[in-house]
């Protein structure tokens, strides 16, 4: 065996310490919020902690009894699920169509979609357009504008093009049309890319709150969890009492309330995170092959 150089040993120790430090910096903030949310507020002192103080799920009970939060959960789930499915349908169908070189105007269409990745009319014209279409104060503003994702379209198209053409040709022989081929052949054969793209869309929808702030802030019924938390965080910096009243909860401390909503909002992403991380790495690969 090779003798380990003392300098190398020193480096390994330093490196291990650094990695532990990085992991702590990444994970501790989330851990702290979690510990706070399950601690008894009366026992909490301000300051860092490594384990919960007198575990209680009281704040979770209070929050899940709150109709505002329950409605927020519904809206968050609805926009994430419906938004993802409709995006997959519209974007997936277009991706399949423009993967066909013989489609009329296909070169124009590809440029037409691609260009939108490099420019946009900007916040204000988009806002005025959406307002004039009657999509403000409307649940559909979460769904319709995000039905087309050009980035996802490219990912799906790249995948679809890798499916052997002979399969499609034999389907055409037996008299299937392209609609049937898309639904019964292309979609089932492209599940990996649809799953990956769908997951990211789900996360994006789940994490959105800017569109609520711009288009739906007058409509509390349509607030997803992220926006409820956003509102609460912002109003808290102004007046704790007012925020507490608006949430109609006085049983728990504002900081417990906040950490608890934060954890509830993180939870779905936390559970799909292992798959997400795995898919992301492969998604990046697809992207770099394309490049």
């Amino acid at each position, binding site marked *: 065996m090779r003798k380990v*150089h003392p300098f*190398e040993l020193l*480096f*390994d120790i330093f490196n*291990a310490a650094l*990695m532990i430090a990085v*992991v702590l910096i*990444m*994970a501790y*903030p*989330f851990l*702290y*919020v979690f510990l706070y949310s399950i601690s008894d507020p009366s026992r909490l002192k*301000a*300051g860092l*902690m490594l384990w919960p103080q007198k575990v209680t799920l009281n704040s979770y009970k209070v929050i899940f009894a709150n109709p505002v939060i329950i409605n927020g959960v519904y809206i968050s789930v609805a926009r994430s699920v419906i938004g993802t499915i409709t995006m997959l349908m519209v974007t997936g*169908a*277009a991706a399949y*169509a423009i993967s*066909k070189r*013989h*489609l*009329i105007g296909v070169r124009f*269409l590809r440029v*037409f979609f691609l260009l*939108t990745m*490099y*420019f*946009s*009319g*900007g*916040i204000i*014209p*988009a*806002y*005025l*357009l959406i307002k004039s279409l009657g999509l403000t104060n409307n649940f559909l503003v979460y769904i*319709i*504008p995000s*039905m*087309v994702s050009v980035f996802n379209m490219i990912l799906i198209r790249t995948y679809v093009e890798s499916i052997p053409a002979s399969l499609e040709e034999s389907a*055409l022989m037996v008299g299937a049309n392209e609609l049937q081929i898309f639904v019964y052949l292309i979609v089932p054969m492209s599940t990996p890319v649809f799953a990956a793209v769908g997951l990211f869309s789900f996360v994006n929808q*789940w*994490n959105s*709150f*800017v569109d609520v*702030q*711009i288009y739906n802030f007058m409509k509390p019924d349509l607030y997803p969890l992220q926006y409820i*938390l956003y509102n609460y*965080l912002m109003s808290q*910096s102004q007046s704790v009492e007012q925020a507490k009243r608006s949430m109609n909860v006085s049983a728990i401390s504002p*900081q417990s309330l*906040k*950490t608890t909503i934060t954890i509830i*909002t*993180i939870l779905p992403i936390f559970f799909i995170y292992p798959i997400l*991380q795995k898919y*992301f790495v492969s998604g*990046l*690969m697809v992207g770099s092959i394309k490049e």
Partner: protein
Amino acid sequence: MAHQLKPAKGRKNLLLKLERQKYLILLVLPAFVLTLIFSYVPLAGWYIAFSDYQLGFSFFAGKWTGLEQFLIFFRETNDAYNIIRNTLAMNVMSLVGGLGIAFIFSLLIKEVGSGRAKKVIQIITFFPYFMSWVILYSVIYSLFSTSSGAINSFLVDAGVLKEGLNILGDKKYSWTLIVLVNIWNTLGYNSVIFLASISNVPTDLYEAASIDGAGRLQKAIYITIPYMVPTLLVLFIMNSGWILNSGLDQYLVFTNPTNRPTMEVFDMYIYRYGIKLMNYSYATAVGIIKSIVSIIILYGVNLLSKRVSSRSII
């Protein structure tokens, strides 16, 4: 197969082709219409920057005012200077700092002996990237708010500070805060890309180097780093094309009245004047200025990119 028949000529044949491809056309149509409406129609909205637009009327109903709105941005206040300075300072530092630190971090991950530890480190560092800015703000607020933040309280109790630092509110911390938060948020994402380029290094290069007696440091310097540099350049060039896009979500949570002078970026300024103060023409004009500067930067970076790495980013 239908499309492999003899190439058709003339109008009649075009109709025939349309008829044959009706299902394909049907499949692309919804995306086409939606893109037309939500991506191309707003471009017509640029007209309102040159007119006195009134809410409720068509984009083209206002009286022509020429470049008045554009001149206001540059002449009447210091806003233009502040906004451009803040946007560039925070985005350039985040980009350079984020890529630089991820570069070094990836080199160090590679040197971790155990494969399982490597995986765990990667999984944990990637996590913040998938969190919304509301969540990130909430977490950061819990740690750094002046009175109740855990770290501030800890430092005060330990006697390091007399009173908590107002990191989230004081304008002198804005840039540091944003740059550090961005590095924290994107470290996992950037290192995944760098680690992918490291995994492309042929293993026999390392074996040959070992036979020649090279140590770990020499292998890193002469083999790993040269393989990572092209990736670094590509990432740097691609990201710098978007240097004026700050992401409304991030600044919506971090900007407040007390730190606005050093925290407000293009997108927030447009948002504040357009959506909040309903000064639509002015906000659109600022948006156009942002787009034009972006295009110039993108074009310049593209030229540079062609020269440096002989690849075009557009």
